[in-house]
């Protein structure tokens, strides 16, 4: 049953009528009352996908929290991470697991450069200007990848197989990705809470002017945060590359879902990103199983819009850096 929604072509369309909206839910409820084993399997897939999704949103939410910028280039940073891991393992024969930290280092530098060139000059400008600038960066990097590596999908050669736990089938690639995601999130949390730089970043996120007042070099915090955000994107991308094919445009889907997660959880919130990632992952997995085609994505957008309208600060808004 593969990687579910993200790689499955739309199912043949079903007929019209209200039945197509009601039947899946009836089926879902029947499965619950019958305690169908498939539910446990779906839950496992949802957790695997949601954990990785949470990581894709982490860098985005951090950059937003600290400098109030929505980084449209985040998705393509993810893709650069994927290609970096692929290059390292294909060309240099290094294990893709080792490729991930290399990709993170590369992306940290790229992130700082992008920030200094495009975001910093307009950090005080109206918000849509930063949005447009990072969108420009998205197109430039995405097309550069397309030109260099062709638009064809690539794949990290890695046959990790799968294990079975209590009748639940777990692909190891996704499992390692989840482990990396959880480990990274814990590490970032520790970094923000325990280190001097981390505390400064949190302080800046809480109150930019206050941070300036107590002598924090906000400019430096900005580009470091942007670099860290990009590095986190590449770790996410690298872990996704462990189990999934990718092409230069893969980032778009992840970017949109990362927006959803960030808004759901609350811009700038870490626990929010985790819970938001799980919610989106679960909807995609369960929706992909029960609903026709890509209808699950419709649900996700409705949830997104609803959150924006009713609780734009998100479930965990303003709780933490």
């Amino acid at each position, binding site marked *: 049953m593969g990687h579910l929604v993200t790689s499955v072509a*739309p199912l043949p*369309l*079903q*007929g*019209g009528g209200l039945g197509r909206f009601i039947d899946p839910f009836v089926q879902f409820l029947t499965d619950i009352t019958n305690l169908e084993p498939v539910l446990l399997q779906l839950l496992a897939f949802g957790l695997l996908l949601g954990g990785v999704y949470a990581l894709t949103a982490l860098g985005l939410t951090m950059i*937003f929290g600290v400098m*109030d910028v*929505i980084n449209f280039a985040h998705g393509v940073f993810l893709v650069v991470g994927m290609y970096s891991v692929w290059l390292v393992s294909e060309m240099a024969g290094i294990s893709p697991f080792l490729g991930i930290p290399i990709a993170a280092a590369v992306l940290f530098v790229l992130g700082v450069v992008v920030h200094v*060139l*495009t975001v910093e*000059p*307009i950090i005080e*400008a*109206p*918000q*849509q*200007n*930063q*949005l*447009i*600038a990072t*969108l*420009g*960066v*998205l*197109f*430039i990097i*995405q*097309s*550069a990848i*397309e*030109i260099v590596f*062709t*638009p064809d999908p690539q794949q990290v050669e890695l046959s990790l197989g799968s294990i079975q736990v209590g009748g639940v089938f777990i692909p190891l690639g996704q499992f390692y990705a989840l482990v990396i995601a959880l480990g990274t999130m814990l590490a970032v949390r520790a970094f923000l809470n325990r280190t001097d730089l981390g505390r400064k970043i949190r302080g800046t996120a809480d109150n930019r002017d206050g941070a300036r007042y107590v002598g924090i070099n906000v400019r430096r915090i900005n580009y470091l945060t942007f670099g860290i955000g990009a590095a986190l994107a590449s770790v996410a991308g690298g872990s996704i590359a462990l189990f999934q094919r990718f092409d*230069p445009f893969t980032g*778009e889907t992840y970017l*949109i879902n990362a*927006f*959803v997660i960030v*808004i759901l959880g609350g811009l700038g919130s870490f626990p929010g990103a985790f819970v938001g990632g799980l919610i989106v992952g679960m909807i995609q997995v369960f929706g992909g199983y029960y609903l*026709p*085609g*890509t*209808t699950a*994505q*419709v649900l996700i*957008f*409705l949830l*997104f*819009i609803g959150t*924006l*309208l*009713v609780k*734009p600060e998100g479930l965990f808004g303003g709780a933490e850096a």
Partner: protein
Amino acid sequence: MSAIETVRDRYRTFDDQRYAPLVKGVALFGLLAALPTIIEIDVAGMELAALLSLKVLILTVIYAYTAQAWNIMSGYTGQFSFGHAAFFGIGAYATQALVVDAAVNPWIGMLVGGVLAGGYGLIIGALSFRFKLQGHYFALATLAFAELLRFVVTNMSELNGANGYFKAFPRDYGAEYGLVAFQFQNDLPYYYLIVGFLLVVTLVSWVIKNSWVGLYFFAIREDERAAASVGVPSFRYKLIGVAVSAFFTALGGAYWSMYFNTIRPDTVFALFKNVELLLPAVVGGPGTLLGPIVGSFIVTPVSEIARTTFSDINGLDRIIYGAFLVAIVIYSPRGVVSWPSQARALWKRVRGDEEVSE
């Protein structure tokens, strides 16, 4: 007085006249009308048409038109929409669904699309403004409303799902090639038709700009609270801006669907479409009348020429797009049309300095 200054003064006197906008408009649209002929003029054995085909011209004017429509909402009222593909797609789909499935005349389909898009715009606006979404949040909400439609349409078998529509022949809806059928057998009439569309939306924009509505729009863009404190009903006027903008954007989508052979959710509702619809206005100068047109004549031909000239390098046109985006917001957020006045200000400063030093 130097010759240049004389010319400049004459121009200023001309500029103050009531008929100046009319003269400028006639000159601009006269030039647009003459373009198909101009590109075929032989200059030193080279025709401009080799680079700039009629197809590129049509595409350029389509995007000038849609940017002008986007501008009414986002340039004038300042409510930055990142989801105009929703309206564009509604226009295209309403037209094709009615033409193909019900043999309705495309002009009627187009108007239905316009009204539906206006309605969708009102829903988006009423929700977002009522809940006071601003800045990033508003841009993301508009994007979400557009993406929502993309997935809804993709999953609707009634609208042929991901396959979309293939344009019908005029005889299928009881018409013959020509204006009534909204279909022609060559590109030239298509070009004049879209220039006509552009003329209409530009006139509407001009009327808005030169009435209290435009002033209210700008006041809302600059400072909503200050505007409300002197009697501007900002909620209502923002809705007017969205609805008018959505309506005209949908007509652009309808034209698109009658010019090209197919529409699919991944083309008319595409994520990238949102960018294409706003970029000319941002590059040319948001909130200005000329900006969207000038912007499109810069952005569209360059990326089209890049696409056709370097057809083996897929994606070069998007790099150019990206570079435009970054450069314009960093170096000239008021757009290309602000350059003459900025140059004048610079010139004044330079000369002023000289006078001081004398």
